[in-house]
């Protein structure tokens, strides 16, 4: 067991995958010689060579198309989109090509592509470089979507994504890259599609991923001082969503708050709540709450940027309000 940063965990997962399988290759803009704009790929080209860790032109469509084409031949490409926002530039390759290639060919061709995308606020990158864009792909069947929050999950899910026969969007959160956590000496893949209960509690279940998970845990700590017991569940994978684990949490606490770093409309939080209402209607003591980013693009100025997503304060207030509104427990 060793303490590593999230960034180091990503780097190690890439290195271990490259070492384990000659069909794996890693490529993207500035990832080789420069080691990546966030240094997540530092040292990989020196170790594995220019044939397996490749710098590309600034051509997101060419990057993702190349990944798909190589995958049709059984290779395991790991493509980096420097900022997740750039997925917009290559939307067709993700949505019309990768997601549908297997289906349209009736299973003749699988496309085991991993796309790494750096997302999230915190760097003062403003509206075109700060978004959490998982929601863009929720309505596209054929893509798996993972959102690790810890170094261990980052390592394990990246290994799982690369080994997966389906295309996986692997979202790294820019604000977590230097966060530290424990990683086993011989870390193993983490199963895609499993949520994690990261704090036990009995009064309310908060579902949150990545940076919002950290804020939910901070809020839970503060609420504990008020004798409010908060359960925190990290979905970890957004598609396929582990409804059973989250639903079981709701059955324990009967109150639900979903916190997400994106606006509310058409989002994973909205989808999750809709499903839980349908499948766990009798478990709710209070209306489910979705705490989301403001209904604006993400602003630049530090104070404005920080005010944009839910804060620990907002989560604390929301839980207080929710439990105040909920029918008080008997006795």
């Amino acid at each position, binding site marked *: 067991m060793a303490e590593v940063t999230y960034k180091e965990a990503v780097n190690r997962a890439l290195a271990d995958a490259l070492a384990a399988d000659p069909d794996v*290759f890693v490529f993207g803009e500035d990832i080789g010689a420069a080691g990546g704009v966030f240094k997540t790929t530092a040292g990989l080209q020196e170790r594995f060579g220019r*044939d397996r860790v490749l710098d*590309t*032109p600034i*051509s997101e*469509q*060419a*990057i*993702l*198309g*190349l*990944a*798909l*084409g*190589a*995958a*049709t*031949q*059984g*290779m395991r*490409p790991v493509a980096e989109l420097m900022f997740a926002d750039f997925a917009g530039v290559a939307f*067709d*390759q993700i949505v*019309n*090509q990768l997601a549908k*290639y*297997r*289906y*349209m*060919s*009736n*299973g*003749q*061709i*699988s496309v*085991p592509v991993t796309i790494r995308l750096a997302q999230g606020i915190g760097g003062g990158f403003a509206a075109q470089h700060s978004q959490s864009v998982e929601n863009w792909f929720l309505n596209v*069947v*054929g893509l798996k979507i993972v959102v690790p929050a810890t170094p261990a999950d980052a390592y394990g899910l990246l290994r799982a994504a690369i080994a*997966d*026969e*389906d295309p996986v969007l692997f979202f790294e959160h820019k604000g977590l890259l230097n966060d530290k956590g424990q990683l086993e000496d011989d870390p193993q893949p983490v199963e895609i599609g499993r949520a994690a209960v990261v704090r036990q509690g009995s009064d309310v279940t908060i579902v949150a991923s990545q940076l919002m998970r950290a804020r939910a845990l901070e809020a839970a700590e503060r609420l504990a001082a008020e004798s409010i017991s908060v359960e925190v569940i990290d979905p970890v994978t957004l598609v396929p969503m582990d409804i059973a684990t989250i639903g079981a949490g709701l059955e324990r606490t009967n109150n639900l708050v979903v916190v997400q770093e994106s606006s509310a409309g058409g989002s994973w939080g909205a989808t999750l709540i809709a499903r839980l209402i349908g499948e766990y209607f009798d478990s709710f003591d209070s209306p489910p709450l979705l705490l989301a980013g403001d209904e604006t693009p993400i602003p630049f100025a530090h104070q404005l940027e920080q005010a944009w997503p839910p804060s620990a304060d907002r989560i604390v207030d929301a839980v207080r309000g929710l439990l105040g509104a909920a029918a008080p427990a008997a006795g």
Partner: protein
Amino acid sequence: MATDERLEILRKMHELRFFENECDRLFRQGQVKGPTHLYQGQEAVSVGVCAALRPGDTMTCTYRGHGATLAMGAPLDKTFGEIFGKAGGLCGGKGGSMHLTDAGVGALGSNAIVGAHLPIANGAAFAAMRRGTGAVHACFFGDGSTNIGTFHEALNLASLWKLPVLFICENNLYGEYSPRALTTPIERLADRGISYGMNSLRIDGNEVLTVKEIVEGAAERARSGEGPTLIEAMTYRHQGHSRTDPAPYRPDGELEEWLERDPILLLEGVLESDGVGADDLTRIREEAEKAVADARDTALAWPDPELDERFDHVWAS
């Protein structure tokens, strides 16, 4: 080239022609549904290119892809079956006319998004290069594709990395409903490859033997690590863009001029001047016509897909 080989090329061109004629006829009868983009007139391009390929080479093409898919060796009946939406079709009825895939013969898919497969072609070529298989990838697209971003991104990267890919631009003078001059400020599209430092050629796309010879040279170049080639093959689409387009925008006499240079007639002329008898030419044509008719009847008799099959093959794992 041996006469037998040239007769087989003629047979394949006839098969493509009769196949498209049948698609047209069945579409009019309502037995083929959805958009259907026919290939009559352009047979020399895909047949010539694919005749220059080897086993293990791969191919991608556009939604006007019946011809290229058949030219790679996809069976007539399973290709018909896919266009008819039958369970026995190449893709079990999930793809249709615009999404023909036969991975077993290296046909990695026809694509209905203009230009989207050019970056994908690079990937298949990259895999061949990395593994040292010596395989090349042939990527067919139309003149209209040269105006979309993926064309430029793909050619730039292919040339930079010296990928073994053949970019085959089938210039049939029209991008969908629009003549080239309405959409493109240059006349010679092969020139676009030059700005990417790419070997770039314009050839007569109706002369199948010329196409084959040029592509063999370009493929050899690619196999030996000298990089990609852009080949602009000049040809003509006898039909409109799709079955709902009678092509009223074509100038008077244009079709007739090109019909005189029909690629099948041109090859028959070459064979005749080489001493192949009219009986042999007739026999090849009639055998091809019968093969297409038999495949059509076979595929039409296949069952429709079971409704539950629509849930299959979304996920691999």
